[in-house]
């Protein structure tokens, strides 16, 4: 892996390379704190961690403008942060606090934020394919030049809605990127047990531009995403990008005993050989972009920021029960 990437020096500016690193570390630290809050019973509901997949959200969102749109998934904290969400308001929402992004009404699986173009995380697998495509349609109709990215896991390949949106997006040449994060497992089932044929061929059947990308290589993710985002912005239509990745943790925090559906050795291989943060950090050191001290400094700064964000959220008040029937109708 790292030998292959070293061969091609990156055209990506230094500040972007550092920001990619910083954003991935931020998500990693955020998710580690989610794990901690959850296991300490401070976080209600479910927690689906994005650890291991950080390069995808970060690389794709780096290719976007602030006014571009994303839709996210139940495993969505990384997408929201990468698109610009503030960790303190994220943690507050995860803990069900009034100060959270959705006033505590959405929680972990429904973070939404118009200010950063986040149309919302979605707890229906594949459920946001229409919303993202609709935002792309509106952008085209209103001549707004915006691109929409629909993040989804490979589990959504089983949902019919996705293919209706493929058809409509290509038929109407809409600026939408279907970003498939293939972490290999539909919950507790290997995707080979649920997915016939070739994943990429499904989108190709509609004439959609496709590419399969190493989702652990943030520079490659960013470079390829930029190419297809720019293409969509020029009005040349949608793309389907398959990112090969891995979730280090279980389907959710409580999914601890995983040996029945995936071997420990496989997990260890991804964690030790293919970690996107380690790989990118090493690449930057090898290429003289940053030294160990600089990377450590980024980490230390983010640790302080994340700890402060957790403290803010833990201390924030819960919404008053009287607010339960507010915000049903606009």
């Amino acid at each position, binding site marked *: 892996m790292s030998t292959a990437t070293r061969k091609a020096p990156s055209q990506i500016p230094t500040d972007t390379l550092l920001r990619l690193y910083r954003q991935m570390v931020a998500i990693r630290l955020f998710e580690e704190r989610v794990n901690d809050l959850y296991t300490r019973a401070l976080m209600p509901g479910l927690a689906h961690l994005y650890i291991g997949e950080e390069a995808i959200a970060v690389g794709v969102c780096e290719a976007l403008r602030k006014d571009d749109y994303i839709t996210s998934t139940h495993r969505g904290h990384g997408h929201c942060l990468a698109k610009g969400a503030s960790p303190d308001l994220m943690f507050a929402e995860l803990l069900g606090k009034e100060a959270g992004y959705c006033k505590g009404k959405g929680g972990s699986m429904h973070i939404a934020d118009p200010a950063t173009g986040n149309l919302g995380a979605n707890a229906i697998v594949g459920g946001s394919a*229409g919303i993202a495509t609709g935002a792309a349609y509106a952008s085209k109709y209103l001549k707004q030049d915006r691109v929409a990215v629909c993040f989804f896991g490979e589990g959504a390949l089983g949902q019919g809605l996705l293919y209706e949106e493929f058809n409509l997006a290509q038929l109407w040449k809409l600026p939408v990127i279907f970003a498939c994060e293939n972490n290999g497992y539909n919950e507790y089932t290997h995707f080979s047990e649920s997915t016939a044929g070739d994943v990429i061929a499904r989108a190709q059947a509609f004439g959609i531009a496709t590419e399969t990308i190493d989702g652990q290589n943030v520079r490659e993710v960013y470079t390829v995403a930029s190419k297809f985002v720019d293409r969509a912005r020029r009005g040349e239509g949608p793309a389907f990008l398959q990112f090969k990745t891995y979730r280090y943790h279980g389907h959710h925090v409580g999914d601890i005993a995983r040996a029945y559906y995936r071997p420990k050795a496989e997990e260890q291989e991804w964690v030790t050989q293919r970690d996107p943060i380690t790989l990118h950090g090493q690449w930057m050191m090898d290429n003289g972009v940053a030294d160990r001290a600089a990377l450590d400094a980024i980490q230390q700064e983010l640790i302080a920021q994340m700890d402060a964000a957790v403290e803010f959220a833990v201390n924030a008040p819960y919404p008053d029960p009287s607010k339960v029937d507010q915000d049903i109708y606009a």
Partner: protein
Amino acid sequence: MPELATAVRELTFGEAIKEAIAEEMRRDPKVVLMGEDVAEAGTTFKVLTGLVDEFGKDRIIDTPISEAGFTGIGVGAAMTGMRPIVDIMFGDFLMIIMDQVANQAAKIHYMSGGKWKVPLVIRATMGATRRSAAQHSQSLHAWPSHIPGLKVVVPSTPYDAKGLFKAAVREDNPVVVFEHKISYRKVKGQVPDEDYVIPLGVADVKRQGRDITLIALSSMVQVALGAAKMLEEVGISAEVVDPRTTWPLDEKTLVESVKKTSRCIVIDEGYFRYGVTGELASIIQEQAFFDLDGPVRRLGAMHVPIPFSPSLEDATVPTERQVFDLARQMVNR
């Protein structure tokens, strides 16, 4: 009501719907309509004939036969600056789009803590007796009425249809409008050639009466009015009240009418079990119990899949005669 300068014409129910859509599209360029065969075909019911000539195919948009797919696009577009109308040819197809309607459109405003809005109109049809059998004949307005976050419109007259539809387009919330297929051509009425809206959640007393209240929706308003005429001939004065929207619901007007008459029948073309009639009857009994002479009675579609054969299908829908007989028995006159 209309001023002198305003032309009042007799329009069919379908023509009133088309006029509402055309006026809203002229008023607001962000209003578009998408669905199957809506452009040159003007829908399978020909209700939208001619709209594509005025607004073009960019605003009257033919879609693939992908109801969930284009409804999803409607939801996303509504969130991002448009006011889409999605056309669901037969209300039975609501089942196909229910995730987009009930899990997405209805909940986005609440789940986002009030940050995103979904100003989407879903127009669907309802109504039996077109010999279209079990998958093209249902009246499913109870379904979206059950879901918090949706508003549901069930107009019965051309005047109401125009005013309510225009209000639906201007709503910042998802609204499902149920248009009765038989009413498209059969029901005619006075409609002003002007811009008016009827606020959602305001019932209308279609006929004043003293002895019994007939609460009826959509096609059943005509049935109730027909029954009221028959009752008048036997000396019974029936009041006909049309809620016009199942949510928001004008409970006050319904309850006040029943408090005055002391008797009530609720009539609806939706399935009898677990439906609109049950909800309305319970509201009346909760709020007007001590003014009632007897139990609130209900008439609805039989709890059977709508059959094909005319002799079978006609037996499933409440009739004027049934309303008349039941009312007469209740008033005991």
